[in-house]
């Protein structure tokens, strides 16, 4: 890849998830020069790991396809993958960003034929599937990855596997001498779109995520539903591969809790309502979903989705924050204990599988940004003049669903465009 040339009229977008991609595309389609920096080997971010979107229950692959087409078609965007911003200094209209690019060990000759993956023997946990399955040491991050190019895991470099991969490649695409690079770029404005990560479920001790195999997180369920996922799209539980026809969903797992994340993660209620419909999709009338909640926060215009799910007699709602989970060691079933606060009934309910509607926390913890930024108590970047021309987009700004993340990305692009326009002297 040739070194991108940037000026102080260039917009730097950090993070190639849905909000970063949107911000980059909107700015580039307005004729601005954009550098899009993505930490992973592929763009797309967390939406690529979802099975379906609420409320329309359509597939994220579809919107991703459109965005990838826009990205490929646009000459104004330079994409850097496996790259991270390590330093950022300066002022609006004049920032210097230091970007570290990790070696991919695969160059542009790659045709994604997959011969290297066949040749390599070493296997590692597949990050894309949250470790629910293994992948080879030479791999395509996921089926729709862009750039559509393989990656060598740095852990195989220097082993025989690396040589095997190189020997298997017919296109001379594997370059084992690739080194880490550091580049410095001048940019006028920055869109910070580093997104979110699921809260560490093991820290919610009473739910035993680290002890019970049939306690999983909502993001893991999305992978299980994926036809290309660890179970080939069969809705089965991890312990014994039995069909999970009776699933419990625990809301506010890590959110709205002073012991964990103080904020409401906003998407989890809708995510569980969406996932409750997966049961009917897979098992028809035999599927049973039980949602344990404090209060359902199906935000504004998607309230009707809630109403629709609620009308399904196979979906029940229990107003209770579950106190603890135990495991029936013989069957692997999980047993949820607590008090139903509507009538104060004590319950111990058995389910095949328990899904924790896990909270969202900012990917970059407060204090670890390459430049000082004003953040709120929960680590989300605030809209504050002190942040200069660094504008947060998507889940770096707040816990948002995809729709709002796109809006936020567009808004950030507009703010960044105004800054570079001022630099160019075309706007007062």
């Amino acid at each position, binding site marked *: 890849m040739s070194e991108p040339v940037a000026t102080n009229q260039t917009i730097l977008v950090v993070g190639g998830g849905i909000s970063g991609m949107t911000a980059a595309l909107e700015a580039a389609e307005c004729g601005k020069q954009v550098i899009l920096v993505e930490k992973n080997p592929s763009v797309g971010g967390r939406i690529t790991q979802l099975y379906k979107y609420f409320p329309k229950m359509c597939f994220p692959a579809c919107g991703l396809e459109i965005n990838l087409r826009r990205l490929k078609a646009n000459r104004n965007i330079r994409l850097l993958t496996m790259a991270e911003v390590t330093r950022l200094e300066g002022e609006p209209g004049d920032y210097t960003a230091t970007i570290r690019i990790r070696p991919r060990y695969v160059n542009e000759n790659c045709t994604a034929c997959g011969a290297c993956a066949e040749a390599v023997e070493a296997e590692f946990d597949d990050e894309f599937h949250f470790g629910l399955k293994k992948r080879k040491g030479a791999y395509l991050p996921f089926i729709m990855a862009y750039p559509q190019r393989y990656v060598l895991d740095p852990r195989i470099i220097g082993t025989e596997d690396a040589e095997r991969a190189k020997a298997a490649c017919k296109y001379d695409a594997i370059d084992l001498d690739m080194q880490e690079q550091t580049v410095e770029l001048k940019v006028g404005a920055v869109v910070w779109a580093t997104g979110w990560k699921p809260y560490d479920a093991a820290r919610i001790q*009473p739910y035993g995520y680290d002890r019970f195999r049939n306690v999983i997180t909502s993001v893991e369920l999305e992978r299980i539903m994926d036809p290309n996922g660890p179970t080939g799209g069969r809705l089965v539980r991890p312990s014994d591969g039995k069909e999970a026809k009776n699933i419990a969903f625990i809301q*506010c797992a890590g959110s*709205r*809790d*002073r*012991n964990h994340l103080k904020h409401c993660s906003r998407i989890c209620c809708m995510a569980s309502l969406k996932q409750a419909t997966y049961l009917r999709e897979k098992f028809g009338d035999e599927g049973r979903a039980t949602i344990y909640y*404090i209060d359902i926060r199906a935000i504004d215009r998607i309230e009707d989705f809630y109403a629709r799910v609620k009308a399904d007699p196979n979906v029940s709602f229990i*107003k*209770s*924050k*579950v*106190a*603890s989970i135990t495991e029936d060691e013989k069957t692997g079933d999980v047993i949820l*204990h*607590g*008090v*139903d*606060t509507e009538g*104060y009934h*004590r319950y111990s309910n058995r389910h095949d599988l328990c899904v924790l509607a896990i909270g969202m926390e900012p990917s970059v913890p407060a204090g670890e940004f390459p430049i000082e930024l004003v953040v709120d108590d929960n680590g989300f970047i605030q809209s504050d003049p002190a942040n200069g021309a660094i504008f947060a987009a998507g889940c770096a700004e707040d816990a948002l669903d995809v729709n709002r993340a796109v809006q936020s990305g567009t808004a950030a692009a507009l703010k960044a465009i105004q800054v570079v326009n001022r630099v160019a002297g075309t706007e007062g």
Partner: protein
Amino acid sequence: MSDLNAQMVEKYRNSFLKEVEANVEEGEWVKMCMQCGVCSGSCPLGPYWEHPPQEIFMMIRAGKREEVLKSESMWMCTSCYNCIVRCPRGLPITHIMHGLAHYAERLGLAPKQNPTRRFALMFWDNIAKHGRVNETVLSIKLYFMDGFSAGIKRALEMLPVGLGMLKAKRFNPWGLFFHKGCKGKRDIQKILAKAREIELAKAAKFGG
């Protein structure tokens, strides 16, 4: 807060909630409960409570003064702190339960025969008298709490444990006759009397 807001808040803070806030230890937290129920579900004695903690909080907010203060529920708390650890809003539930029990006792509304209450009073008399607990007297009183024959029966049941403790020097039979107490016990008693006076004066404002 706007005037209308302030008025509405005032309206929902009924007199019993205000009374609890003023007189019960950590009582100002009661309004923070969001009724998730994790405290009740986490309580090891949960099934034995007539009204588990989050129900008590709701009853306070609903102004059910007699039902709350005469209840046996908060006397069930064994201070295991499970609820405090798990409460998503960080309510000091254990302390509030003890605070409520204490306040009910101060008003003379606590259930007279509740064993926890009786033990608590016994313990209090014991420690307040000497400034230090006399364990021998306390345990013997506890055994004979329900009368002479029940006491003998309980003492015989516990005999092996008692002998074991005696051997390990964890039980001092001489404590029955001699107990040193602490220095300045008069002063401690004065402090306690004054504290009680202040508490009662505060409670009197609410028609206790």
